[in-house]
């Protein structure tokens, strides 16, 4: 008969080899992305009391939005709350390392920035942090992608990516969608 035990074994070994090659290709691709392209899952374990965000040094209302730190690092701080982002629009420069720090005072939210790999969850009690470099300029939509309640579908913000020469921090290092010019 054609399907002898030997033939079945040979067929299974052949498939095992094909699967091993496929897994190897995928593993190399993932390692290439992680090591050469610096594409990694955002993993920041940093606790913050969700009940006193408005009293914290970092996430008070006046400290939200984009700010260039004294060391030159561009950091955007955003609070995700039912059902809006504060601020609703923030400016970041293209072709430069930027950091987005987010937290929530109420329930679990999540963000993605369209057309980029920026994608993270926002948990009350934790600070989510994403490092990235934007290459395309323009207004990018940043919707909440974790169902957070009845107003979830209305919860979105704008990331305004501007060319480096149009990124003008004020004397306090701040940049907002209103005064970026």
């Amino acid at each position, binding site marked *: 008969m054609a399907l002898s035990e030997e033939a079945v074994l040979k067929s299974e070994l052949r498939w095992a080899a094909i699967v091993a090659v496929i897994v190897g290709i995928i593993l190399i691709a993932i390692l290439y*992305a992680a090591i050469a392209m610096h594409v990694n899952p955002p993993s920041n374990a940093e606790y913050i009391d969700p009940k006193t965000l408005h009293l914290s040094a970092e996430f008070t209302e006046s400290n939200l939005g984009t700010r260039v730190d004294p060391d030159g690092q561009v950091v955007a701080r955003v609070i995700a709350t039912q059902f809006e982002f504060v601020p609703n629009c923030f400016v970041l420069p293209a072709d430069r390392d930027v950091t987005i720090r987010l937290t929530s005072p109420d329930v679990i939210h999540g963000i993605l920035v369209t057309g*980029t790999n920026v994608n993270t969850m926002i948990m009350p009690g934790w600070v989510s942090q994403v490092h990235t470099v934007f290459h395309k300029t323009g207004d990018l939509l940043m919707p909440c992608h974790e169902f957070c309640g009845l107003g979830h579908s209305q919860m979105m913000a704008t990331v305004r990516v501007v060319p480096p020469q149009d990124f003008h921090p004020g004397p306090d290092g701040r940049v907002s969608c209103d005064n970026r010019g």
Partner: protein
Amino acid sequence: MAEPSYPAGPHDYSSGKAELEQLEAAMDETPRGAIVVSLIAVGLLMIGWLGLYFLVFIPRGSVG
């Protein structure tokens, strides 16, 4: 009404040597076809995965 006739089972080779040879030929061909279909399916999946990886994921830039 006459009862329809059924073969006694898949291993009923009583009908003759010619049918046994046909069965062997079919058993020889069928796995080959299944392997070709599987290779096409797995190949398309890999092309799709690599296409998304190189044309969508990598151009979207670094993140971490």
